[in-house]
């Protein structure tokens, strides 16, 4: 396993959904303090799903490429799906990540958890009452 699959380099060079939304429903920032990586994630939510998403931040290629790829993965998804999403799904999509860099790769995942938590446990913006059942 090479630590930098072409996919990572491609997303690092051409990040998707990078920037900010004019009127986000969620706007959270998360950091990997020891390495100085910072990630801001914004979501526009409609009918219980992610209608639009943007990320911004600075950090290593793995965390930033992972963020770019992750925005593609979560865009259009229902919040209830995101709430049960496992971190392995992101790692697999990245093509595997070497152990010392797991924290970098999972920064977007942790940021999304924070975003979901800030939306409340359930039932916001039309999310169904039975979201987690």
């Amino acid at each position, binding site marked *: 396993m*090479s*630590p*930098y699959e072409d996919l990572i*380099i491609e997303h*690092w*060079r051409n990040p998707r959904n990078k920037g900010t939304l004019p009127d986000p429903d969620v706007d959270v920032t998360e950091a990997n303090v*020891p*390495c*100085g*990586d910072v990630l801001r994630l914004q979501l526009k939510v409609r009918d219980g799903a992610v209608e639009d998403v943007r990320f911004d931040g600075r*950090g*290593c*290629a*793995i965390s930033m490429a992972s963020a770019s790829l992750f925005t593609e993965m979560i865009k259009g998804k229902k919040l209830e799906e995101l709430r049960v999403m496992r971190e392995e799904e992101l790692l697999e999509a990245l093509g595997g990540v*070497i152990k*010392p*860099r797991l924290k*970098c790769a999972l920064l977007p995942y942790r940021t999304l958890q924070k975003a979901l938590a800030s939306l409340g446990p359930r039932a916001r913006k039309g999310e169904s009452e039975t979201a987690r059942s």
Partner: protein
Amino acid sequence: MRNVRSDFPILGREINGRPLIYLDSAATSQKPRQVVEAVARFYREANANVHRGLYVLSVEATELYEGARKKVAAFIGASPEEVIFTRGTTESLNALAYSLGEARVGPGDEILVTAMEHHANLVPWQLLARRKGARLLAVGITPEGELDLGDLEDKLSDRTRVVAVTHVSNVLGTVNPIPEISRMTHEAGAVVVVDAAQSVPHMRVDVQELGCDFLAFSGHKMLGPTGVGVLWGRRELLEGIPPFLTGGEMIREVWIDRATWNDIPYKFEAGTPPIAQAVGLGAAVDYLVELGMEEVRRHEEELVGKALEGLLSRDYVEIYGPKDPARRGGVVAFNLRGIHPHDVATLLDQEGIAIRAGHHCAQPLHRLLGVPASCRVSVYVYNTVDEIEAFLDALDRVWESLGR
């Protein structure tokens, strides 16, 4: 310098299918067979506790341990009773900050550190200042990454009790002018504590020439084992400060309600010391003496010169610290424009090249440099010009894949 590579078995390793190029000796050095063998031989043939036994084996172990102390003392121009074995630089500095603080620092006093200190020579003084109601001040650095002696002059006063300064910065590589700092500090009536973790392994260090009062360094950064380090102090100062740890050989007489202390250096060596490690450190000192510290320094200057030249010629690289190898120790810290140091280290590791990336336990310095982290290469006796060139070539490949 003679080719020493065959003395270091680990250099025969392959990493990710490539021959290991080890450029992280500032973190810890590799060990020659002579040191590994000295430790193994101690355990095989002479292992016993020291200073206690009346039997042959204990006498032999004690002689080996004390022999190591004499070697270390001669290596830094000190007398053996001024050489205290500790677990390493960090322990030496923590112990000293405690003991010195108890004896010499009170409310309203001032302690000076510098903006380029390793956390090990910063945080113990922070705690001391807080404990005693003293003030901690940091001497600044110039844009070239050298200590601002004018600022030191300004900050020294009759309230100054301690100046704690690194001999060689583990990030900038800067060699600080300790003799001058000692003169200035003594004029103000304070004592000088030198963190020599990055100097003693790499250049001739003589405590009399430095003129300092205390000096700390680690065995594992100078070809020796982990778990042993040194605190050197002037005899009259060591005699005037209390011990840090108590129990074991450091005691002379004990009653239920009180105790008296042994002579130096034993007063500061509580409990069973790192005996085999000290013996290993003695072997490391023998090895360095045989190579000659002037030769070691010359060899590193050549390697650092090559690294600096190569890095300076790449416009995507930013270097921290002095640009002249003669003003530097064996480390060079740098960044690739827009690329996180962790990416650089991971990609180089793919090619078997081990470098450091992070804040190198010097967060205040990195804050001053305006970067969260940096890459660092550091060299030692076993590195070669070819390795530096291989590192520079690999850096171009990192830039090709991640530069933008």
